[in-house]
């Protein structure tokens, strides 16, 4: 993306528009400066990733009115530049006395709170921190009013930060490129347009992971090579005493730092896997060393053998039940990286830098890719759950039929209602579930809260456990009740891929339908909306005997008369309700 010139971006963006299908993703940008062509650059970057983005720039210096107009957008970006906070800010700021300064801060404190409140229902708000770096170059200046205002307003922002909000530190971008490369004093003077094309491109690059996360496109798995990736040296040749694994050597210090970063990612919910051409015993010897920070149990899948890495990564994807486009692959060999790039283009590949001192910086950019909105309890348990999953898969070989196997699992599902379900988890399920998802509606915590308080909606989630462990809250249904017509409409029905293959969906929907059998409702409607990833559920409603009433290439509509419903036979599963 950053490699295209502005002229190429503009052209590409126009071309891409006509090939876009899928739901529109509306972004609004509110600001007190001129930001064109950030809208074209952002649109193009998202359209290149198949997100049908439409970016609308607000009017110049109309933050207060634009935030109202943009409250229905899927995402809003806030550029509130200190240097243009009021007209002639740079001229007047240092002449202000204490009380004028406080008055100014107070006014903008109120404005910030107002905007935050207007934007509280927008699923994603990207808000740039106030910065005092534009139009200020003197490092020994004692004119501190500007810094004071910026600190005070940033405090307000941090204190009143809402959960839908990501605060972005532009100064990190200024530092990376140098202020003269990102700030155009000439265009600021001329048109109040402070930034260069280079800045917009990099800014867009840096915020993409947050927008991907809001679109359910986060990376989920980090696949790591071993030699010269997890430690310095080659274990099979150098031996355990000569490789760099901990802070006792200079090289090892860097790897120790990398180990901490890897564990941080794991705590965030990223699944780790190893894919290494090595003898298993050699690698095991490193993991058994007490000075090596990583343990075998930190990894959800291990492929330590001499097979092609492509084959191994494919089999990891299968074992973890995660699409290859959620994979990041890290290796020190150009050969392996090239092979994977060619064979599995969906996988994002990164090479360990030649200069090992650059390795921490690479990890910073990896962290950005794995961006997610605050880890939930399920995230940190995920590795444990996937280890349990592989035990289950082994177990499954012992049984003659799938039903035998399911019987042996001792499955129990607990249905949670609007009082007992976890709102952040329900929102996360809508945001992250791609495969078993009939309509792929993405909702924020606020929207889930609205469903719960609105009597016209019925919402249930479920917990799953079996004799190997717990999966947590892994399924959700949202039904809209049309009381006048005595009909129900399934708005959302989804299940996490962790629990696919156990017929849980059948028993769950059966239980939900039965809740309505003796109610005044007569019919229940369902729909399937096709996405690139939910092919596996395209015939779900047929399988539970809904009648298809209308279908086209991308959508199918269904109806079930509740009086016609035949309950399914309850086998190998225990269902309990937890409604208080």
């Amino acid at each position, binding site marked *: 993306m950053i490699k295209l010139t502005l002229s190429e971006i503009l052209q590409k963006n*126009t071309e891409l528009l006509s090939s876009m299908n899928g739901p529109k993703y509306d972004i609004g940008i509110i600001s007190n400066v001129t930001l*064109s062509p950030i809208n074209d650059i952002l649109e193009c970057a998202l359209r290149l990733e198949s997100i049908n983005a439409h970016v609308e720039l607000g009017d110049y210096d109309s933050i207060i009115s634009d935030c109202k107009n943009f409250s229905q957008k899927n995402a809003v970006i806030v550029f509130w530049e200190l240097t243009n906070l009021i007209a002639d800010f740079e001229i007047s700021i240092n002449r202000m006395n204490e009380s004028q300064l406080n008055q100014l801060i107070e006014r903008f404190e109120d404005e910030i709170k107002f905007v935050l409140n207007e934007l509280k229902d927008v699923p994603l708000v990207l808000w740039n921190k106030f910065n005092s770096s534009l139009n200020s170059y003197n490092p020994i200046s004692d004119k501190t009013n500007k810094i004071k205002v910026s600190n005070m307003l940033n405090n307000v922002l941090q204190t009143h930060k809402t959960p839908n909000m990501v605060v972005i530190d532009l100064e990190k971008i200024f530092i990376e490129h140098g202020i003269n490369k990102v700030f155009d004093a000439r265009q600021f003077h001329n048109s109040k347009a402070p930034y260069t094309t280079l800045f917009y491109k990099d800014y867009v690059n840096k915020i993409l992971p947050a927008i991907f996360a809001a679109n359910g496109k986060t990376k989920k798995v980090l696949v790591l090579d071993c030699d010269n990736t997890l430690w310095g040296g080659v274990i099979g040749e150098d031996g355990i005493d000569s490789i760099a694994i901990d802070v006792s050597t200079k090289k090892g210090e860097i790897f120790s730092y990398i180990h901490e970063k890897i564990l941080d990612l794991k705590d965030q919910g990223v699944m780790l896997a190893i894919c290494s051409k090595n003898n298993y015993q050699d690698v095991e010897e490193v993991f058994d060393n007490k000075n090596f920070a990583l343990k075998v149990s930190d990894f959800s899948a291990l492929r330590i053998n001499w097979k092609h890495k492509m084959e191994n990564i494919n089999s990891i994807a299968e074992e973890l039940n995660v699409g290859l486009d959620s994979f990041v692959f890290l290796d020190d060999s150009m050969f392996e990286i090239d092979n994977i790039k060619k064979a599995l283009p969906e996988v994002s590949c990164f090479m360990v830098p030649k200069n090992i001192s650059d390795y921490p910086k690479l990890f910073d950019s990896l962290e950005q890719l794995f961006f997610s909105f605050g880890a939930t309890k399920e995230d940190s348990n995920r590795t444990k759950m996937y280890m349990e999953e592989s035990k289950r898969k082994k177990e499954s070989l012992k049984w003659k039929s799938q039903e035998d196997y399911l019987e042996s699992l001792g499955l129990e599902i607990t249905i949670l209602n609007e009082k007992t379900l976890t709102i952040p988890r329900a929102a996360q399920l809508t945001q992250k579930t791609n495969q078993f998802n009939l309509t792929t509606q993405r909702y924020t915590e606020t929207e889930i809260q609205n469903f719960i308080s609105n009597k016209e909606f019925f919402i249930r989630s479920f917990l799953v456990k079996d004799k190997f462990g717990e999966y947590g809250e892994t399924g959700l249904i949202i039904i809209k009740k049309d009381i006048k017509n005595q009909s129900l409409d399934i708005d959302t029905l989804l299940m996490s891929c962790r629990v696919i293959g156990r017929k849980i969906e059948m028993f769950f929907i059966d239980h939900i339908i039965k809740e309505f059998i003796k109610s005044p409702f007569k019919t229940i409607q369902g729909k399937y909306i096709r996405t690139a990833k939910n092919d596996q559920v395209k015939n779900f409603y047929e399988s539970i005997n809904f009648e298809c009433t209308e279908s086209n290439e991308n959508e199918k509509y269904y109806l079930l008369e509740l009086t016609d419903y035949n309950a399914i036979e309850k086998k190998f599963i225990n269902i309990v309700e937890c409604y208080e």
Partner: protein
Amino acid sequence: MSNDLEIKLIKIFCSVLEIKESNLYFNMTMDDLEKWDSLNHMKIIAAIEEEFSIRFDDDLLEKLTSLEIIKEELIKLI
């Protein structure tokens, strides 16, 4: 050289103003092209400066009101 420069300039104008190359002539000015407004003028300048790795002086920015003038000033800078 001049020809290569003209091709690049035309490409930039067409991509910013979303018009066909056949509708663009070198004697055109800001007044001839409806879409060449002040916002698109900034885009054109940014795209040209990026493409040729140059920078127009402050005073020039508002004088670059026709393709011919832009071409002349550009030749002085590269």
